[in-house]
């Protein structure tokens, strides 16, 4: 397995079309996208506003379904899964980082990070605490475990979100413009942190951005324009 890890396709998308229906108007958001993401990738999806980045991430994240085409996540065709199965897939296989952090405001930093572990219902309190503490240390928030999200800066909140996304040790972490609400220095730090996690844990990261500085950290880049993949994959090459 270790030798073949790089070749394993963790996400595979075939001729995906996504249309939104607004009253009687059909808005095509994706118009035939095919794409393979390998385990361990650090993949950036770039493109102008309205090009379909969010839509694509939503399909991979199993929070939405394609109009046509197939979306395979961790070997499962998402079209055949019911809500319960999709929920479990998200819980055990995926991690999410949101543009506006989306932490639970009434829970502490520690509790926010711990939450997915509680949902998984398979760890003791000690195991949970160990994982959470370890991650909070990695993202540099071990001094803030008892703070509420509202007491943190944007960059700190996104670090909490990263910890929350990683705490279940998911195979894939999805991040839709994780730096859009942060200043450029903080944003770059966040991407560095994600990259670090990618290299340490071999977690697959797929994130969207329209910031050129941010995308330069990626080892592969997908360019979307008008619901289609524009140029060929600009692989930044692996080190």
């Amino acid at each position, binding site marked *: 397995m270790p030798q073949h890890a790089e070749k394993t396709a963790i996400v595979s998308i075939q001729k995906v079309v996504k249309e939104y229906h607004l009253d009687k108007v059909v808005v095509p958001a994706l118009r035939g996208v095919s794409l393979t993401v390998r385990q361990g990738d650090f993949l950036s999806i770039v493109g102008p506003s309205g090009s379909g980045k*969010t839509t694509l991430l939503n399909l991979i994240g199993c*929070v939405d379904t394609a109009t046509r085409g197939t979306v395979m996540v961790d070997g499962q065709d998402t079209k055949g899964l019911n809500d319960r199965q999709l*929920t*479990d897939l998200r819980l055990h296989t995926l*991690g999410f980082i949101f543009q506006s952090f*989306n932490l639970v405001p*009434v829970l502490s930093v520690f509790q926010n990070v711990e939450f*997915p572990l*509680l949902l998984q219902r398979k760890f003791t309190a000690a195991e949970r605490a160990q994982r959470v503490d370890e991650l909070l240390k990695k993202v540099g928030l071990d001094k803030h475990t008892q703070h509420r999200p509202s007491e943190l800066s944007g960059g700190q909140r996104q670090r909490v979100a990263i910890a929350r996304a990683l705490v279940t040790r998911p195979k894939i972490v999805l991040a839709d413009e994780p730096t859009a609400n942060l200043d450029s220095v903080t944003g770059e730090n966040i991407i560095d942190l994600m990259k670090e996690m990618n290299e340490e844990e071999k977690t697959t990261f797929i994130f969207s951005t329209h910031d050129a500085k941010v995308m330069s950290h990626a080892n592969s880049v997908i360019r979307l324009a008008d619901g289609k993949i524009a140029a060929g994959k600009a692989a930044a090459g692996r080190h």
Partner: protein
Amino acid sequence: MKHWLEGVSQLFLIAFRNLLTHSRRSLLLGGAIAGVTTLLVFLGCLSSGVKATMIESATTVATGHLNIGGFYKVTAGQSAPLVTDYKKIEEIIAKTLPDLDYLTARGRGWARLVSATDSTQVGIAGVDIAHEPRLPKVIKMEEGKLEDLAKPGSILLFESLAQKLKVKTGDSLVFSVLTDRGVNNTVDVRVCGVAKDMGMMTSFNVFIPQETLNQLYQINDSATGAILVYLKNMNHIPRDMDLLRKALTGAGYTVMDREADKVFWQKFDEVNREEWTGQKLDITTWEDEISWAMWGLKGVDGLSYLLTTILLVIIAVGIMNTLWIAIRERTREIGTLRAIGMRRRAVLTMFVMEAFCLGAMGTATGALLGSLLAVILDTLHFPMPPGAEMFLMSTTFHFALDPIRILGGASIITLCCTLVSLIPSFKAARMRPITAMSRVG
């Protein structure tokens, strides 16, 4: 199980903290819930208090825990509330009931009582005061002596009746009654004492010696109105009733079928219509004998349930509305939790828990306030306004705490709050995880 509990307690924490975060909204709604509970508990305490007063006065004036009464018919169409040769029956009762406290025979009558200035219809209990251990304990004398009731031709009446007839101890009164033979008979009596009122019933009931009553109705001394049976434990009433029925039937007596919630004088019409003559016995409970006076109590209960229901509907609307707002405000949060793997059922639980918390805290506060209010008012002994006296069969406001009733009321209100929250909560649970995603940019 343990993991499930940890998950649920985290949902509980979220629910609870959200209530605290929106303190104004929570206080308003929780306050309303507390208010309704206060009202329900307060009225419940009033009802329990009235009932307690009624039981006390009824079991003094009108009934034992169980009564062996009956009807004697000389002809088919004419009945008297009599038990003939009652000593034999007393023996059977004493042998049958293991937890008998004591029993006593009392004559029953309904006659016009005439004073120098006024007259009124009264219920008469013909007693043998030497065999009434309960009366000296519960009757408080205003003037005169209870023991003097042993003298033939004496009468004991209660304050409000004495006032109405304008008589004091030592004054003379005349009983006037139409006997079975269709003759108008009178008997002179002298007031041997005036007792303190005990609820409404004492304002139209008097005590005279059994032999004076027999004289009034011209019946012989081997007959009485009813045998009043007092038990050591009132919980045994149903069992003891069965025992007595079997024993008396076995001894050859005809025992009438039970008619719940009917006092003996409500049975005359029916008994007169029946063909039989001779003696039939009738076993009743204290509840049967005072049910006619319970309508006021039922009114209070009905009113409190009606009021509570109306207010609960208003609160239900409030809860739904508040939850709608909360759910709208927290759309992104719900979407996020769904996206990171929270199941629909957990979202449902989270919001239902919020309503449950609010309901439980509101009703707990309300139950406490209502009980406190009742306890304070009870010590003040407020007199009832004249209209309410007759309605509630009591002369002062008496409140009693009935834990089962208070807990029951609080639980039902909490349950209603929780149930009604299911509607918006289901809607929240159906929300799609995509609502967490930002559509900007």
